[in-house]
Structure formats: structure tokens, C-alpha cells
């Protein structure tokens, strides 16, 4: 019934995409922090200015998962990187609004639209 969080990281010019799947809860801590590290370390040709969190294959986020996202955002802000997110269901978009995460993380319906804005 439950599915562990998994993350795949890939790089675009000046940006990194972290594609998440499964459940973003307390068990996702190492996965998420490791994926962020891979994201910002992985491209030596150009600094990573934007990290895209793709929640399109995530089926559950709980309060501990929100805390993990806050930690990632805090680190990114300290490193002067932008974080955007895509693929959230309407319910989790609402939770991003309630928690004010959407004040600091720009939300896009899907990865294509998130990536397309990187060029602007």
C-alpha cells in the first residue's frame, strides 16, 4: 500500500530537475536531501540557478514531507537558488497555499511548463 519515495535527478542548462515518486513523508528525508545535493553538484559547466521539484508521480505528502520541502527551500534560499515545483494535485497545491510554500516556490501544472519558463 505504501511506496517509498524515489528521486531521479537530471540537469538542464543552469537548472536541475528532481523527479519524485512515491510518498514524501519522513522516510523520504535521505532521498530528498541526497537528490538536492546531486542536483546542485551535478553540473560543473554552469551554476545551478533553479531546482525544479516534479511531484507528478507523488501520491502522498504529509506534514513531515512538508517539513522536508521547507528544509530544501531554506537551503536553496541560503545558496541563492530558485525552487519551482510542478505536478502537484489540486489538493497538494492547496496545502502549498495554506502553508505559504507557494509564496516562495512558483508552481506549474506540469514539468513542460516549468521547464519552459526556465528560458525566460
Amino acid at each position, binding site marked *: 500500500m505504501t511506496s517509498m519515495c524515489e528521486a531521479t535527478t537530471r540537469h538542464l542548462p543552469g537548472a536541475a530537475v528532481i523527479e519524485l515518486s512515491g510518498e514524501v513523508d519522513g522516510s523520504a528525508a535521505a532521498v530528498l536531501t541526497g537528490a538536492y545535493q546531486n542536483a546542485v553538484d551535478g553540473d560543473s559547466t554552469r551554476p545551478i540557478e533553479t531546482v525544479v521539484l516534479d511531484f507528478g508521480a507523488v501520491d502522498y505528502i*504529509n*506534514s513531515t514531507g*512538508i517539513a522536508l520541502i521547507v*528544509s530544501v527551500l531554506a537551503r536553496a534560499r541560503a545558496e541563492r537558488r530558485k525552487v519551482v515545483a510542478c505536478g502537484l494535485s489540486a489538493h497538494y497545491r492547496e496545502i502549498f497555499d*495554506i502553508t505559504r510554500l507557494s509564496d516562495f516556490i512558483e508552481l506549474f501544472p506540469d514539468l513542460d511548463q516549468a521547464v519552459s519558463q526556465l528560458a525566460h
Partner: protein
Amino acid sequence: MTQVARPAPGKPRRLDTFTLASEPGNERLALARVAGTVKGLGLSEARLERLKTAVAEATMNAIEHGNGNRAEIPVEVEVTQDGDAITVAISDQGGEAYDASAGSEEPDLLKKLDGGQTPRGWGLFLIRNMVDAMQVTTDGQRHTIWLTMRTGGAAHDEHV
């Protein structure tokens, strides 16, 4: 922000009651079973999702903080309906020593980002914002959180 109110008076009809071992992750069992129980009772999809999140967070609190992740101490869940009010009661054995609603600082994202608050502490905040009413009661060691959602709450869908 959700009002904190008593469950609706009257003679509630019990829809389901069950227990869960206090093991991390079992909150997913609670939300799935409650979702199945209330399906077809008139909650919109958005409000059902909110109730599921509230049930999961309250059950997680009961498992972790109320029962201290001691599997042998069950979390009890009861689902009742009284008119248009669906109430989910989630009980642990944490007693007065654990009352998540008392004394906890409201989460402030900016403070969390700047290190003024821990990144955690969203559970009760989410619960309050997900349901129409929330109440916490303590009877000896028995600690219960009551989550009420009304089936005729379309207006609430548009503003939380």
C-alpha cells in the same frame, strides 16, 4: 482558519470503528479505511481529500506522540454521522501529558526558512485547516481528537 467547535449534538450513527497498532506508517491504513467508509455520503472530492489528510495527520500524532510508537497500544478510530456532519474520532493513550493543541506555536514559514522555527510542526496546523471543526478531549489517559466535516460545505471548497 477552521473553527474549533464541539461535534454536532444529537444521536450520531456509527459508521465504522477500528483499531490500529501504533506503528509508523499505519496512518495510511486509517485514511484509506475512513475514505472508504465515507465514500458516497456527499463529500466532494476536494473535501474528501482534506478529511483524508486530517485523519492521517491526527493518526500519525496519536501513534507517535500519544502512544509513543508502542505497537501494542492501539489507536482507536470511530466514524460517525449526525445529519450532514461526519465526525472521525481518533483516540490514543497519551492522556493530558500530550495535547498537541496546547502551547504549540503557530507555524510561520518565513521563520522556518530563516531558522527561527524548526521546519517541522505542521501537523496540527494542517488538521485545523482541513476540517470544518476540531475538538480535543482528555478522559484520564484517553486522549481523543474529533474531526468534523460537513457534507454541505461547497462554499468551503473555494476558501480555506
